[in-house]
């Protein structure tokens, strides 16, 4: 019976069509659909073409070549030359007219972007060729997945077609974690819990794939990867080591299709910020299995004051010069700062203040010093959430030192959800800078003898806060750009997300070899940042559902739509 079923040829869903005005080309073709046939944008179809297919070694296979294409849009065409003809055909506008003996002749015509041809034939697809839904093998061939080495295939979700067939969308590890390309950037409107869920799914996918592979020393490759997650909203990511609701049958099928296990993260360390109440973290929830608190005394942040004050308007550069000198003075323990051991000392003591008055210091005008004091007081004293302390308690860690000890096989969740903007930027910049230095320079002050992880993956949401478009010279932006542009060779990988891609610096998104797009508003997709998408496909972004994403990947020839399973860790209930 099975043999018989296998012999049934796949159904023909339509035929290619080239006309005088709408020709097929090397890049596109059209096909009309059989009546009642349903397809959707992002379905992948195949059609027999000229020439001979090549096998995996590039040799002629003896089979006719096939072209694969991505459906971008479907139009319904009738022979009505204008709307007036339809109006007339309905008894001159009788809206209740439904007695039509012969329905107007019409057909659905799909427009298709060529993905590939397995014989490297890029002649236009000829007219009147039967069109089929691509088989799972065909989809792999179409997207270029078949060219990825098995060991490099990281599942990113399932491509589901309108005929019910599905296949795994793999991303190429070499284009995700380096060295060929790196980084994933995700964009889409908030509220669908899609971007964060996908990022966490991808982290899980990378780790599970690495777990199954052994390094030359016999250890699991997952021990060579460390993950740092910044929790920016509520307690979303403060329970990722807790098992969530069991997956439904559908969800389970998706996990199984990708050869993955639905499970929470392992070896998770939570780093929560200090609050104004002694001994308690400033977090929406406290992780069940424990956590560590971090805080910033002056000595911890002295070399990061530029990050802390990165938002201060400074057109003449006077402030920047002053901050630089102060950082150097404190870090190098210069005589002028010998009594400067706390935020209090810096704000109200020498060398910036004398006899209760702001003083000119070195080449720095008193007005610049005053400005520095005002902003620093606001950030560390009057508006702080408790992150800054004159002296850290024993249970309050130095985040820089903690990150410097980062180990492979661990997931670090740094909570910044309740911090204000300046504090968030300090923490983000601190973590980024520490990891970058760890990977780019000789590690100093690293106590542990365990090797530095080969790959450190960051996940941060709301990237637009740290690397906004249209801003120049911000220390945090420079840090993010360094990672975006050089991270792939260093092994520092950025998984980032934001609502609007246009709000993020183009050098960050441009350096992401993989872009993920969730539902996006019409005005946003009109921005130039989405030029890489075909106009027909752009429209689909406005109606993506929950759990649906568009993936563009360096290996893929066209974007594809995927679905992925919900995270298996415990998640915040809606409304809580």
């Amino acid at each position: 019976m099975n043999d018989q079923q296998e012999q049934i040829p796949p159904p023909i869903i339509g035929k290619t069509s080239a006309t005088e005005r709408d020709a097929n080309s090397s890049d596109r073709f059209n096909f009309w659909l059989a009546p009642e046939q349903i397809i959707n944008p992002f379905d992948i179809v195949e059609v027999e073409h000229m020439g001979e297919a090549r096998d995996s070694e590039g040799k002629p296979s003896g089979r006719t070549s096939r072209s694969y294409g991505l459906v971008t849009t479907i139009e319904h065409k009738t022979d009505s030359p204008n709307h007036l003809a339809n109006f007339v055909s309905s008894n001159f506008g009788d809206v209740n007219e439904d007695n039509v003996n012969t329905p107007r002749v019409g057909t659905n015509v799909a427009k298709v972007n060529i993905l590939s041809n397995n014989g490297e034939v890029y002649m236009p697809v000829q007219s009147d060729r039967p069109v089929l839904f691509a088989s799972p093998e065909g989809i792999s061939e179409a997207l270029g997945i078949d060219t990825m080495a098995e060991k490099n295939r990281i599942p990113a979700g399932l491509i589901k077609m309108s005929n019910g067939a599905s296949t795994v969308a793999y991303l190429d590890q070499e284009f995700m974690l380096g060295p060929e390309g790196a980084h994933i950037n995700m964009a889409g409107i908030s509220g669908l819990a899609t971007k964060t869920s996908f990022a966490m799914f991808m982290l899980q996918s990378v780790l599970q794939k690495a777990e199954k592979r052994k390094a030359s020393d016999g250890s699991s490759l997952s021990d060579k990867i460390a993950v740092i997650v910044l929790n920016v909203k509520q307690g979303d990511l403060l329970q990722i080591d807790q098992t969530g609701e069991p997956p439904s049958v559908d969800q389970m099928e998706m996990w199984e299709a990708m050869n993955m296990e639905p499970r929470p993260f392992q070896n998770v360390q939570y780093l929560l910020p200090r609050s104004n109440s002694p001994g308690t973290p400033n977090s929406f929830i406290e992780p069940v299995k424990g956590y560590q608190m971090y805080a910033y005394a002056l000595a911890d942040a002295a070399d990061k004051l530029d990050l802390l004050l990165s938002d201060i308007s400074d057109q003449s550069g006077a402030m920047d010069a002053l901050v630089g000198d102060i950082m150097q003075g404190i870090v190098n323990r210069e005589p002028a700062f010998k009594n400067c051991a706390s935020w209090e000392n810096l704000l109200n003591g020498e060398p910036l203040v004398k006899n209760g008055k702001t003083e000119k210091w070195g080449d720095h005008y008193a007005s610049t010093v005053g400005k520095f004091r005002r902003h620093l007081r606001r950030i560390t004293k009057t508006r702080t959430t408790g992150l800054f302390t004159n002296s850290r308690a024993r249970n309050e860690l130095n985040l820089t030192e903690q990150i410097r000890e980062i180990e492979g096989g661990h997931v670090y969740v740094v909570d910044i959800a309740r911090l204000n903007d300046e504090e968030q930027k300090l923490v983000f910049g601190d973590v980024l800078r520490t990891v970058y230095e760890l990977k780019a320079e000789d590690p100093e002050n690293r106590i542990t003898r365990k090797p530095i992880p080969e790959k450190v993956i960051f996940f941060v949401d709301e990237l637009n806060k740290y690397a906004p478009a249209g801003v120049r010279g911000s220390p945090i932006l420079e840090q993010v750009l360094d990672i975006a542009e050089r991270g792939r060779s260093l092994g520092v990988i950025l998984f980032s997300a934001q609502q609007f891609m246009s709000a993020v610096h183009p050098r960050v998104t441009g350096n992401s070899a993989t872009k993920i797009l969730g539902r996006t508003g019409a005005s946003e997709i009109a921005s130039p940042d989405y030029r890489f998408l075909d106009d027909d496909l752009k429209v689909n972004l406005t109606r993506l559902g929950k759990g649906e994403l568009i993936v563009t990947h360096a290996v893929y020839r066209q974007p594809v739509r995927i679905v992925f399973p919900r995270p298996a860790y415990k998640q915040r209930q809606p409304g809580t």
Partner: protein
Amino acid sequence: MRSPLAFLKPALELIGTNATVLPASGGAFEDMARPDIEEADDRFFGSEKEAKEGFRDFAETPVPDWRELYRPTPPIFRSDEQVFRYFCDGSIKTYFLGTIIEGNRSYPLELTQIGSAILYRQENGALKVAKFQRRILLLVPYSDGRGISQSLLEELKKCESQDFEVVDVAVADPLSERRQDPRDKAGAKARFEMHRLEQQLIEQFAPARNADEWTIIDGGIRKSAFIELPRTVGVAKSFDRTPTFTLRKGNKGTIRKDISGLLVGLKYGHRTVSFFAHGGKVAFWYVRLREQGEVDYPLMGVVKVEVPTPKEGEPIDANLADHLSAALIGERNVTPHGLDKRWHAHLYPIFQAERVIKSNFFSEPVLLASIRWPRRTVEI
């Protein structure tokens, strides 16, 4: 790639070698049919007696009262009853290839593509091609002694195939026999051949129909000959606008109406009473498909319906005419408005049958590329 019209080459070479050819500019150009050609053909197919005296006899029973010339026929739609299942049309494209000179005779050489299609309408209203045929004809005058030589014609006949035929324009037929201009005559002959093809197609196909399935053929019921098939009705969107009707007022003499006078009183959803034509072989009447307010003048939105009578001179059942008329009014939507200026009287399935034929004709670039005269023939 081999030309799909390669079969023409030997014929053209024969003519080019054995006669002098004055080629048409550009190789060939289409002989455009006049817009009222169907109307004219309707007149030519009609008998001279009826044209002169007018139509006199009612062709239905019970015999209508001369004061009641219209009968209500509210539409019957497919959702109620699908009366018409098959739709037959023919189409034609004629090209003038040039003037041939043989000895002291000269005559036009015309090439025509004729086709006929029958569409079947399914339960859901969608159409399918039930039968289609296309032929290429080379039209030359012969039997009147003023055209092609016998020997050349005989050679040309050897080039004939299933799709290609050489036709003698001078053989008399109802459409071309009264035409004088040679090209006009050739055009009429081509249309006659098209009607013949329609007739062949429908007669071959008729036995395949189910007992309750009616066929509409475009135009009159008379094609090359009378189509005397059961459940077949001719519907003409363009018809002769000259006939008159002479009605007997009981024993009080007669009243004469011209067609405009008859149709101006015909309301939407009604038909006229039927009359005998062609010496009682055909019953015909008119049906208004559209409100007069929807169209420009009274004769628009009206179709002429013809059915063969059971026997010559035997009237048809008035209820049958009512039923067919009601079903025809049900065909009024959708329309080819914007695609055909006769949209107001065009039946959409017939329009589609015409499209099927035309979309299967060889395109003009293909045809022109196939017209290649031997080099020597350009010398005069």
